C-alpha cells in the first residue's frame, strides 16, 4: 500500500482533534502509513496572505521543501485550510518566477532547496483515487443503513483549483457516503462557504451563513452533516444552540468528519473515532454502533 | 559596396541572431499574415522565405543558409493531415529528422534547426515559436560555420 507524508496543521492539534484521531485510525486500518513531516510549521492559512504574501508563501513552501527532503512522497493535508495554503503556494511559486526567487533565497538560507516536486493531496482523494472504491467497500463491515447524510464540501478543497472534485457538481463525498452504506441527501449550498472565516471577526455574518446551511441540511431531513474541514465542522457545530435561540428554528444536527463516517462503517468504535468528542453524537439506525 | 556597408553596420551593432525561416504558402505564411493583421509582434530576427510547400525545402537550402551566416533555420509547415498538397509535410518531417541529425554531427546544435507545424490561424504560436528560437539562439551565441 502507498505511504504518505502527513501535514496535520494546527487545527487538528486543537479543536479539530477528532478529525486527526479518526483519520489516523481509518488510514491505519486501511494499511496506509502517514509519516508526520518533521518539524512542520503553520501553513500560513489565509491570515498570512492578508498580512504578507511573500512570507505566507515562504511559510507554506518551507513545509513542501521539508517534505521533499524527507523523501518527496505525496503530502496528505487533511485540513482544507492547509490543503489550499500548500497547494496555492506551490501553484503561485510555479507561476511567478520572482516569487520563486524569493522562496529559493529564503529557504536557501536554511539550507532547504525547493523544487516543487511533491504533490499536495487531500485524504478524500487518497481514499477514492489511490485506495479506490472497491477496497473501501470491502473494508465496510457495518453499512450505515438508513443513515441520511448531508455532505458538506466547504470551499478550499474545490476552489479555486478543483483538484479534488468539480467546483460546480462535486460528487466524491456522495460516493464515499454510499460506500459507507449511508444515504446522501441532496440540498443546496453543499459547496457554499459556511462563514467560518467570519464567526471570529464579523460574527453576525458568519452565523447567518451557518444558519442557512444548517437549515438546508435539516429541511433535507439529514441525520448528520459530514464535513471535510475542521473550520467548517467547528463553525457548523458549536454555534447551533445559539442559533436555535436567535432564529427560533430547530437547527440541531450532528456535524461529523467523513473519516468518522467511514470509520463507523468499518466497524470502529466511537471512542477510537473520537465521535464522543463531538457536541452532538449522530444517532445510527443500526444497533451495533451503540451511543456515547 | 552597399551590401558590404550593410553587413559591417549589422556587425558593429550589438549582436543579434539571424533566423532564416522557410514557410509554406498555405499554413505558416498565412499565419504570418494573420500575425500582421492582428498586430501580433514578434522578434525581427526571423526573416521569411516563402515556398509553396514545406516539401519543397531542399536540405541544401538549410545548409546554404547556415553556411552564409544564419544562426538558426526555422521551417514552418501545415499540421500533419492538413497539407495543401496531400502529404508534402510528411516528406518534410522525414527529411528534417535526418537533416537535424546530420547538422548535429556537423556540430550545429539542434536548437538551431527547428521544424514547426503552424496552422493558418496560429499567429500566437508563430509568435512564441519565433521569440523562443531567438532567445535560444541568443543563449547559444553566433554560429560560425564555414560549411562542409
Amino acid at each position, binding site marked *: 500500500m502507498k505511504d504518505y507524508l502527513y501535514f496535520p496543521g*494546527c487545527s487538528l492539534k486543537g479543536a479539530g482533534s477528532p478529525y486527526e484521531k479518526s483519520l489516523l485510525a481509518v488510514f491505519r486500518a486501511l494499511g496506509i502509513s502517514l509519516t508526520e513531516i518533521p518539524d512542520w510549521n503553520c501553513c500560513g492559512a489565509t491570515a498570512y496572505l492578508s498580512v504578507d504574501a511573500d512570507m505566507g508563501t515562504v511559510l507554506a513552501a518551507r513545509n513542501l521543501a521539508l517534505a521533499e527532503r524527507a523523501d518527496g512522497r505525496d503530502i496528505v493535508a487533511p485540513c482544507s485550510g492547509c490543503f489550499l495554503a500548500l497547494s496555492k503556494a506551490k501553484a503561485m511559486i510555479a507561476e511567478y518566477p520572482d516569487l520563486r526567487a524569493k522562496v529559493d533565497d529564503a529557504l536557501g538560507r536554511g539550507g532547504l532547496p525547493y523544487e516543487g516536486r511533491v504533490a499536495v493531496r487531500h485524504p478524500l482523494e487518497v481514499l477514492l483515487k489511490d485506495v479506490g472504491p472497491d477496497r473501501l467497500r470491502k473494508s465496510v463491515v457495518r453499512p450505515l443503513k438508513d443513515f441520511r447524510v448531508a455532505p458538506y464540501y466547504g470551499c478550499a478543497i474545490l476552489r479555486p483549483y478543483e483538484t479534488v472534485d468539480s467546483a460546480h457538481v462535486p460528487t466524491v463525498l456522495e460516493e464515499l457516503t454510499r460506500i459507507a452504506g449511508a444515504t446522501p441527501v441532496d440540498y443546496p449550498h453543499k459547496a457554499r462557504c459556511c462563514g467560518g472565516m*467570519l464567526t471570529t471577526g464579523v460574527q453576525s455574518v458568519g452565523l447567518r451563513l451557518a444558519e442557512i446551511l444548517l437549515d438546508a441540511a435539516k429541511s433535507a431531513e439529514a441525520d448528520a452533516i459530514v464535513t471535510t474541514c475542521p473550520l467548517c465542522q467547528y463553525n457548523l457545530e458549536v454555534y447551533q444552540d445559539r442559533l436555535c435561540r436567535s432564529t427560533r428554528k430547530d437547527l440541531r444536527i450532528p456535524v461529523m468528519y467523513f473519516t468518522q463516517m467511514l470509520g463507523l462503517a468499518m466497524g470502529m468504535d466511537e471512542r477510537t473515532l473520537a465521535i464522543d468528542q463531538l*457536541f452532538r453524537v449522530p444517532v445510527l439506525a443500526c444497533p451495533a454502533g451503540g451511543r456515547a | 559596396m552597399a551590401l558590404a556597408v550593410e553587413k559591417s553596420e549589422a556587425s558593429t551593432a550589438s549582436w543579434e541572431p539571424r533566423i532564416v525561416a522557410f514557410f509554406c504558402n498555405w499554413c505558416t505564411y498565412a499565419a504570418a499574415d494573420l500575425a500582421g493583421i492582428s498586430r501580433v509582434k514578434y522578434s525581427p530576427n526571423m526573416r521569411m522565405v516563402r515556398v509553396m510547400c514545406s516539401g519543397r525545402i531542399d536540405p541544401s537550402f538549410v545548409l546554404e543558409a547556415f553556411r552564409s551566416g544564419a544562426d538558426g533555420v526555422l521551417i514552418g509547415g501545415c499540421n500533419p493531415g492538413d497539407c495543401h498538397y496531400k502529404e508534402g509535410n510528411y516528406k518534410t518531417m522525414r527529411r528534417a529528422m535526418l537533416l537535424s541529425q546530420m547538422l548535429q554531427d556537423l556540430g550545429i546544435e539542434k536548437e538551431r534547426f527547428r521544424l514547426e507545424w503552424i496552422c493558418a490561424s496560429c499567429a500566437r504560436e508563430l509568435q512564441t515559436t519565433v521569440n523562443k528560437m531567438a532567445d535560444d539562439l541568443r543563449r547559444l551565441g553566433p554560429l560560425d560555420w564555414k560549411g562542409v
Partner: protein
Amino acid sequence: MRLVKTVKYEADLDATFAERVAAQPGGERIWDCIQCGTCSAICPVSLYMDLTPRRIVGMVRAGFRDEVLNAVSPWICTSCYACTVECPEKIRITDIMYVIKRMAMKESGHHRFVVPAIEEAFVAMVRKNGRLTESRMGIKVAAKSGLRSALGMVPIAWKLWRKGRLRLLRVERMQNPESLRGVLAAVEDRRPAPPRTGSRGSPAGVKA
C-alpha cells in the same frame, strides 16, 4: 437634509493605484473586467459589503484608492474563491482582495476594524512559535472583541474543554522555531521596509 457631493475630480484619484494592484500576483487581469457582476452575485457575503467585488475592481481601475483601501469589503471576504471560479474573464478577485487587504494594512488606518487585528495576532503567534495555539489565539481574540461576544464564547469554550478539544495549558510549538524565523527574516532582508506586525487580538481562536 444633507447633500453629498458625488463628483470625483481627477486630482482626487490615484493614477498609479491600478498599476500597483495589477503588479501583484493575481492582480494582472483587472484590465479584462467587463463589470458583469458575476463575482458580486456569487459572493456569499457581498450583501454585507459596502462595495461589491465588481465595484472594487472597477474603482481600483479608476484609481479610487482611498475608497477602496478604507472599504470593509475585503475584510468581509471569506476567501471562498467562488468569484475567482465564476469570473468569465478569469480575474482572480479573491487574490485582489488579498492585495487590497495588504495595502490597507500598510496605507490606511484600517485597524479600527477587528479582522485585520486578528490576522496580525495570528501572524505574530506563528512568527513566535511556528505554529498556532487555538486556545491562546482564542483568548487574544476574546480580549479584543468586547465583553459581550467574549462572554458569548464562554459556554462554547467550556464545552470544547469538556470534550477535550481545548487544552488551555498546552502550547503548540515547533522543535526549533528559530529555523523558521531565520527563513522569514531572509524574506525581510530582501526588501527595504519590513511589514508591520504585532498583536491586536480579538474573537474565537479558529484558524481558517
